């Protein structure tokens, strides 16, 4: 009887752990709606959805890289880089040409990252720190150290179109993001390629022995990550008709924390697209909430840094505990505990 009860409890805990991000989302949403001033109204919710679009889009590709067991620290800078390219070239050729070029540039960054990681076999943390520095230099060189802004009726018409709600609370940019989320979610959870990402992240050798071209999977993951970062940056810049040189700098911290909170393990092989997106949304609500409570931007920076640190620490501690109990059977441990109790 007692035994059964315990099992139920552990099952419940496992279930809670599995859905923890959705629970967290609900808790934050209800809390903020009840207590944060001016939180629950369509204007604020639209703003949240609009702001979250960029990081949610970046999180899509980044989650795939994490599922593969790699890391892409260059996402934020890739977003800025692509945005700057799109806007600079717009002046000469218009969006019709500049946007595809910028997306391709983003994909090129991913290809470079992927080849260096998969073929040359350099640790992905190291590679992406290198490309991060290169991209920052490139961005500053392209713009001469100034932010880029556009003007003109056509450009503003596009900005307005992207930002104005088409359906209630849903401007085209948010709708586009939702479309990306759905496509990526279906791709990762329902396709052969998607499963291969999990295989490679879970155990590279096994995946290779099973006949998966692990190098190609890794490179694809990096290309998807950089491309989505580029798309996110470009859309953000198009909506505001401007690109600042540090627009993507906060995204790294944001997306990394969100992805880990969402349950995608840094060791790879675990996680999901939807969970990351929900986590990004939860974080955004939390940050907006702190601003609405009257705290300044510096508090937001402080809290977001603290959250990333806590999340990384939690993940490290969990794997530390897991490592300690590896090879020890839960049932035996339980018996041992009972024996101790008797004594």
């Amino acid at each position: 009887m007692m035994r059964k009860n315990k099992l139920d409890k552990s099952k419940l805990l496992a279930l809670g752990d599995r859905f923890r991000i959705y629970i967290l989302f609900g808790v934050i949403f209800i809390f903020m709606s009840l207590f944060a001033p001016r939180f629950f109204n369509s204007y604020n919710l639209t703003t949240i959805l609009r702001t979250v679009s960029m990081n949610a889009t970046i999180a899509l590709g980044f989650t795939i890289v994490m599922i593969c067991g790699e890391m892409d620290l260059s996402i934020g800078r890739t977003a800025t880089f692509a945005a700057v390219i799109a806007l600079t070239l717009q002046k000469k050729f218009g969006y019709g040409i500049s946007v595809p070029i910028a997306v391709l540039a983003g994909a090129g960054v991913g290809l470079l990252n992927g080849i260096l990681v998969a073929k040359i076999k350099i640790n992905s943390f190291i590679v992406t720190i290198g490309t991060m520095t290169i991209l920052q230099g490139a961005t500053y060189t392209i713009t001469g150290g100034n932010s880029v802004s556009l003007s003109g009726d056509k450009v503003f018409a596009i900005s307005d179109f992207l930002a104005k709600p088409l359906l209630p609370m849903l401007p085209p940019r948010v709708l586009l993001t939702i479309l990306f989320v759905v496509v990526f979610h279906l791709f990762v959870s329902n396709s052969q390629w998607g499963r291969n990402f999990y295989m490679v992240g879970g155990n590279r050798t096994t995946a290779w022995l099973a006949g998966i071209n692990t190098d190609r999977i890794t490179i694809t993951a990096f290309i998807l990550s950089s491309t989505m970062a580029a798309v996110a940056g470009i859309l953000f810049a198009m909506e505001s008709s401007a690109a600042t040189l540090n627009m993507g700098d906060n995204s790294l911290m944001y997306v990394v924390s969100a992805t880990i909170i969402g349950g995608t393990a840094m060791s790879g092989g675990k996680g999901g697209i939807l969970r990351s997106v929900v986590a990004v949304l939860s974080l955004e609500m939390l940050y907006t909430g702190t601003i609405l409570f009257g705290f300044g931007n510096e508090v937001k920076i402080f809290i977001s840094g603290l959250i990333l640190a806590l999340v990384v620490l939690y993940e490290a501690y969990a794997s530390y505990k897991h490592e300690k109990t590896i090879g020890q059977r839960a049932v035996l441990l339980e018996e041992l505990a009972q024996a101790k109790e008797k004594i």
Partner: protein
Amino acid sequence: MNGIQKVDTRALQTNRFSKLLSSIGIYAIAALFIVLGVVLQSMGIINNFLTTQNMMNIVDAVALLGIVAVGMAFITYSGHYADLSAPTTIALTGIVSVELLRFGFIPAIMGAVVVGLIIGIINGIVIGKFKANPIIWTLAMSYVSMGVIRFVWVNKQIYPDVITDDPFPVMLFDNIYRFRFFNAISLPLIIMLVLVVVGQFILKRTAFGAQLKLTGSAKRTAKFSGINVELMIALAFIISAFTTTIAGLAITSLSRVGAYYNGAGYDFRAVTAIVIGGMTLAGGRGSIIGVLGGTLVIGLMNNIMTLLGVGTFSQDIIRGAIFILVVGINAKTLRSMGRDDA
């Protein structure tokens, strides 16, 4: 074959390139850069390379970077890549020291060292004990330190001479960077040289150095042979935080202002110096003398690029490319020789 077993000698051969990059060869590259500078000057492409002032500029820049790199080299040596929290540690210790200058010079220094050591100890515990990924953790740590700076000081820049009316501590603080023995040798240079000598001694001549080497090259083996691996890693991070704190004091003294942006870029420059100085990111290889050479090369390269009129940001591109190239070649040659890879 005649009963003699053929031994795979690939692992025993030394690759010419990696030999070039190993500790002594890096000074040849540094010398090459000096020759390049002289040649460019004689061709009239750059001016003022071979002047006392410029040489002193190079040495001063190398001294600051060297102080950070020597400490961070311990982390690389222990197989934990780098400390990305270095720039914010520089900023935080600097701003704390300026703030505490109102209580005098000694409290300012002590305060900075305490803050630096706290950061080092936190890094050491989380990465050593809980095995967090060093890059992502130190990145998180840098955001936390930045958050603390923004939280406490908002966006303020604080100046030593505004903080206190007493000119004496301000004078002392200004002289951390500006004091020169015989009007030539700056205090940071002496600190760096002392750190290099002590660091080289610790790494190559003490039990701690040997244990750190084993920790870096074969962690499991180190653990099973009774080395307190967790402590070794933690100490590496504490040493790095300590030298970064010294650099933080010197840099803040140089700029005469405590602000959140002090020290930006020092993390990546230090790793690049370490890597081209012959320390592989896989850990357990290289020496502090080599790191000094790497720092020298970075300093010379920056100086020549600046004289050539290459912008600060374009220099980032070149530095990043060189970093990836060196790491990539290192990894490839090590692997083709049948050793581990970075």
